[in-house]
């Protein structure tokens, strides 16, 4: 029996906009994945601890406050430091296109910006799992 894909949907930093994160969480759940949503105000440390504890296959982060260049890489690096290298890390939110190359270099595999259909996120995960 194949176990369902486990996803951590996380809100790093102080940003309180969770409409998108909650819609993504629900869409992923409706597609058959198991989703853990962290709620607001997660530190990178808390996100990594949850990811490890919940043994997730995907970490999906949402930031609309402009703090993505600082916080996304921090999560990536902390996961690496924990020896976790087979988790798919994706992000979304209000992120200028020009920042995406930097984020991808930092280890975020894909960034989903405003207007992305939830189906695209679902498909991406199914097609790009690392484990």
């Amino acid at each position, binding site marked *: 029996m194949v176990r369902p894909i486990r996803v951590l949907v996380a809100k790093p930093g102080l940003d*309180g906009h*969770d*409409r998108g994160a909650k819609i993504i969480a*629900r869409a992923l759940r409706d597609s058959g994945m198991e989703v853990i949503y962290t709620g*607001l105000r997660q530190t990178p440390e808390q996100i990594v601890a949850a990811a490890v504890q919940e043994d997730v296959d995907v970490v999906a982060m949402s930031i609309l406050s402009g703090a993505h260049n600082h916080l996304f890489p921090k999560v990536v690096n902390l996961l690496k430091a924990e020896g976790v290298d087979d988790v798919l890390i994706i992000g979304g939110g209000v992120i*200028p*296109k020009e920042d995406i190359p930097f984020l991808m270099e930092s280890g975020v595999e894909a960034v989903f910006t405003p207007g992305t259909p939830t*189906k695209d996120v679902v498909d991406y995960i199914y097609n790009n799992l690392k484990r």
Partner: protein
Amino acid sequence: MELPIGGFIMEKNFDGYEEIDKSYNNWENNKVEKIKLRFPERKEKFTTSSDIEVKGLYTPLDAKDLNYVEDLGFPGEYPFTRGVQPTMYRGRLWTMRQYAGFATAEESNQRYKYLLEQGQTGLSVAFDLPTQIGYDSDHGLAEGEVGKVGVAIDSLRDMEILFDGIPLDKVSTSMTINAPAGILLAMYIAVAEKQGVSSDRLRGTIQNDILKEYIARGTYIFPPEASMRLITNIFEYCSKEVPQWNTISISGYHIREAGATAVQEVAFTLADGIAYVEAAIKAGLNVDDFAPRLSFFFNAHNDLFEEIAKFRAARRLWAKIMKNRFKAKNEKSMQLKFHTQTAGSTLTAQQPDNNIIRVTIQTLAAVLGGTQSLHTNSRDEALALPTEDSVRIALRTQQIVGYESGVTETVDPLAGSYYIESLTDKIEEEAYELIKKIDELGGAPKAIEKGYIQKEIQSSAYKYQMEIESMEKIVVGVNKFRIEEDAKSDILRVDADVEKIQKEKLKALKLNRNNEDVKTALNILEKKAQTDENLMPYILNAVKKYATLGEICNILRKVFGEYEQTVIL
């Protein structure tokens, strides 16, 4: 005999309605059904955002129960359906008040001066997230966030720079600050004092609406009871010391942005309003002493007519609530005065210039709905904070509607429209039912605790998204009429250096101020926070000694604790 227009006559048994009814049925069964065979309608059912069915045609039959004097009345008179002021924009246009702020106080000060030069008529301060959540720029949780979504304010020193060269007796200022609202208000009062302006001359608003933070916005600090105490402290303090100040901006904007429908926006906002009035009365205040200074903040969304009807319904409903439920005697206590912001969530990252058109329609909705003040979003809303050029266009949108379109020349021009009056009634009716539901749950604070309001909003949000993905709802440029686009390169970027600059400023501040005085002020505040006393004088005292925002909030965190969000999915 002359046919009246709708129900605007006193006799309900007017038999002209029978004739209209007969003609209508005749028209529908013959003309309409015939044409539908050749040209089917585009949808099975046409609905508003609130799922209210929109008919093909509205006639006097749809307004036949309307009593003009009771249900509409006159602008400036109960139930204020047509407006809170008798002459509205004929006397003075709405305040053009662009929400602004980013990076340091110096840079934001420049933006404010630019906006005032370009003709905006009121200030609106956007603070960064650390400030909104009571953290100084050198706090661990402030990393990466300093100056990003608004201006970083760590102390009175920053506030002085923010308003440098701006006479506080001449402008009104709205500050979007909630959990630490009392502290920012105290800073504003202190800055004014240094300018020689006494607090009784200050005009402005603080958002100060914690309930919607728990529901939809997320910048809470303290638990509900302590938060309500701070809010009612502010009501009381301002009624005596800052009598021209709007002590709260009870907000529906964010609730709508989180995904609520128009009906939910009205219902949840007014339910929050009810909770604040109840809290203030419980704290010993007389309703007519604080209610005239309550204000509201609504969203201006896409559906033009639903939005206009929504504003009218909200005014009428609140007037009834204040009069009947809270027995207000002062007419001013029954007036729903509001600020509006055009709906950020409707703006797209794709083909951003299209957003200018969206904002124009939303501006019309707000103006035809009788708003007292308005913020129009810029075309780059989905990308970043606005550039100077983008925000100027947004301001020009208001100015063109105000000066060139003619819609301001008469009050509530859409009154009497069978559709508008029918929609106004329907929204009021459905919002009222929802408020009753919240009452049954124990009021807004209890409903929030139980997750009821949040779940309702999430359902609506998900439904809306699924309608877009199924093409039931079209978003131009996103799911239809798309193009290949390059990234828009000229967007506003906040320098990462801002964080460094603020940290340096904090170091310098702590060296230059009298730290003994600060310690004493904070100690007094800590003691008083444990009593029932009004904390505003003690906050003001600490602020004047240059205690930082973070230092003051830490004291309050110590005494009140922090709110723990229950994750509701």
